[in-house]
């Protein structure tokens, strides 16, 4: 058969060519896979880097000698002993102030211990080491400390402690916590969702169920897709111009009798975040509504339901899991966004819990940013701890989303 044109390698020639082709294929396949390996390695490195920073040796000195306060080794102090020491050591004014914040007797041993360290012994961190260094170079570190800081104690410390979660900001890294920041973040999430959820679902319902196919609908849809791609810092500028400045009387609470505030409140920031996550919210709700089969709508119309009754009783309940997943994505975004908060003026130092929409605020990512950009290593350590808090929050949110998705997944 076609003898006229035998220009293809046959037999062993074909096989040697084929072997070359397979070799190339293997090389490329390895290259493709290594891209994913790089991604995995990066993620591992990032997580390792954070953990590495949050635990490790600390060399510190006490400004005041523990022996001045008690003969007992300080680690063994009981709650009662600590109470006595604090009462004696602190000025009565300082003691009463603390007592007013929270009854001293009601405080736990560890809280009192921290007060003791902070107020009386006055801890002074000389150096910190990463977890890896601490585990692999323990002896060197001990030698180094003995030489450089003969009075210092060396301790392996987890910077992430229960107190870290419950104490507010402090100018000393050893005593700083993320309480104010976590509460601020929760306020932001609350305000943002309160705005974005109803508006987002409303917009999605309008676009999927009501909107006629015309140029206006087209523009709205394109516009939403575009808004989803606008850099977050631009939303920050919008929030600054509109909520912080233009609507200051409302967002500062001046219109409601609040006097000691300007527009840089958790309300302004929350609304800015609400607008930022709105496109995400709409797009996800649209997807969820789209997935509800038409037969359901027709069934509802068939028994004489109005459009809204159809939407309210049939479409929305069935789209709910998708809408919830979208909300969780929006919450995650609100928890992690930093740039717009800087622009609308998150406070850099604040230790009062936010207690109204008109409070000044800080947020978890803002604290991470602040602490990361400090030169002292102990601040990097608490930045790492705050990152762990943030990542754990985000991971549990996402786990919830996945559970929701699996639980409510319907097969039509």
């Amino acid at each position, binding site marked *: *058969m*076609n003898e006229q*044109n035998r220009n*293809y390698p046959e037999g062993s020639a074909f096989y040697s*060519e*084929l072997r070359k082709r397979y070799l190339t294929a293997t090389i490329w396949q390895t290259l493709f896979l290594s891209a994913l390996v790089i991604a995995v390695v990066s993620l591992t490195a990032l997580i390792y880097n954070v953990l590495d920073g949050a635990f490790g040796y600390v060399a510190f000195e006490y400004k005041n000698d523990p022996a001045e306060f008690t003969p007992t080794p300080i680690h063994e102090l009981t709650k009662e002993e600590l109470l006595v020491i604090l009462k004696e050591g602190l000025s009565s004014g300082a003691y009463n102030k603390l007592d007013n914040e929270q009854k001293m007797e009601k405080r736990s041993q560890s809280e009192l211990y921290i007060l003791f360290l902070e107020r009386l012994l006055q801890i002074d961190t000389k150096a910190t080491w990463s977890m890896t260094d601490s585990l692999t170079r323990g002896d060197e570190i001990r030698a180094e400390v003995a030489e450089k800081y003969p009075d210092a104690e060396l301790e392996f410390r987890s910077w992430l402690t229960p107190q870290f979660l419950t104490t507010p900001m402090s100018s000393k890294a050893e005593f700083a916590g993320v309480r104010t920041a976590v509460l601020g973040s929760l306020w932001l999430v609350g305000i943002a969702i309160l705005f974005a959820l109803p508006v987002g679902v409303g917009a999605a319902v309008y676009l999927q169920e009501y909107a006629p196919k015309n140029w206006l609908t087209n523009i709205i849809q394109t516009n939403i897709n575009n808004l989803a791609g606008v850099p977050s810092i631009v939303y920050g500028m919008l929030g600054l111009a509109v909520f912080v400045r233009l609507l200051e009387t409302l967002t500062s609470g001046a219109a409601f009798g609040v006097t000691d505030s300007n527009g840089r409140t958790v309300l302004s920031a929350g609304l800015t975040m609400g607008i930022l996550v709105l496109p995400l919210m709409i797009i996800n709700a649209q997807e969820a509504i789209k997935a509800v089969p038409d037969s359901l709508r027709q069934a509802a119309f068939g028994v004489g339901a109005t459009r809204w009754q159809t939407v309210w009783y049939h479409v929305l309940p069935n789209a709910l899991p998708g809408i919830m997943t979208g909300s969780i994505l929006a919450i995650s975004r609100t928890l992690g966004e930093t740039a717009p908060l800087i622009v609308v003026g998150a406070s850099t130092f604040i230790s009062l819990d936010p207690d109204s929409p008109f409070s000044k605020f800080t947020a978890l990512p803002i604290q991470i940013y602040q602490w990361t950009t400090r030169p002292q290593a102990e601040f990097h350590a608490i930045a790492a701890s705050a990152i762990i808090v943030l990542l754990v929050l985000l991971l549990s949110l996402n786990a919830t989303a996945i559970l929701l998705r699996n639980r409510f997944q319907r097969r039509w």
Partner: protein
Amino acid sequence: MENINYAIETNDLSIHYGSFTAVKGVNMKVERQKITAIIGPSGCGKSTLLRAFNRMNDFVPGCHVTGKLLLDNQNLYGKDVDPVEVRRKIGMVFQKPNPFPKSIYENIAWGARINGFKGKMDELVEQSLRSAALWDEVKDKLQQSAYALSGGQQQRLCIARTIAIQPEIILMDEPASALDPISTLRIEELMQELKKNYTIIIVTHNMQQAARASDYTAMMMIDDQRAGGVIEFDDTKTIFTRPGDKRTEDYVTGRFG
């Protein structure tokens, strides 16, 4: 050798999708440089059988084959057989034309290039297009996208690119079912041309086409377990005039179902 005249032989060939047996116990000998048609109601496993001939089913997860499929006395599903070489020797034209999103010229040159073609590419392109009766229509627009062609032209381009790599056998799965009658006729004429050089196996559900164009016909039908099988295999004339099986008679005369 006894089977020198046969391009493909199957030996109790069964094809399974997971635990479901789609085609069962096929024994047939496909003669060289002839056109063999496979007919039967839809869902009876025609495509599945055809795709087994050049191991296209390898890409369907869970699909596996039992029994034997012999090409030149080698089992196509033997352990040391390379599927890429199998497909290079047994080309395929699909139901819907699927030219690559490249120029007309590239559509043909690509397969030749990957298979290590050493001759003059321009000549090969022209020769293949001529063999597929497409040259005159496209000779002035070889660099245009293949998507600009009509459906019938696209299908002939797919035939041309298959011819270009000079396979032994060409498989065609309802190659004309997506085409208009005039394009269909051209494809049929083309097949008569091609059988001088190639062995052709064609799946069709168009009875006239099978009767007109093929030398042999295999009739497939499903059994009560929904497994398809070849119930009759003979020359086309016999199948259409004196079928041995009642079901075949019902089917070819249109009395089926």
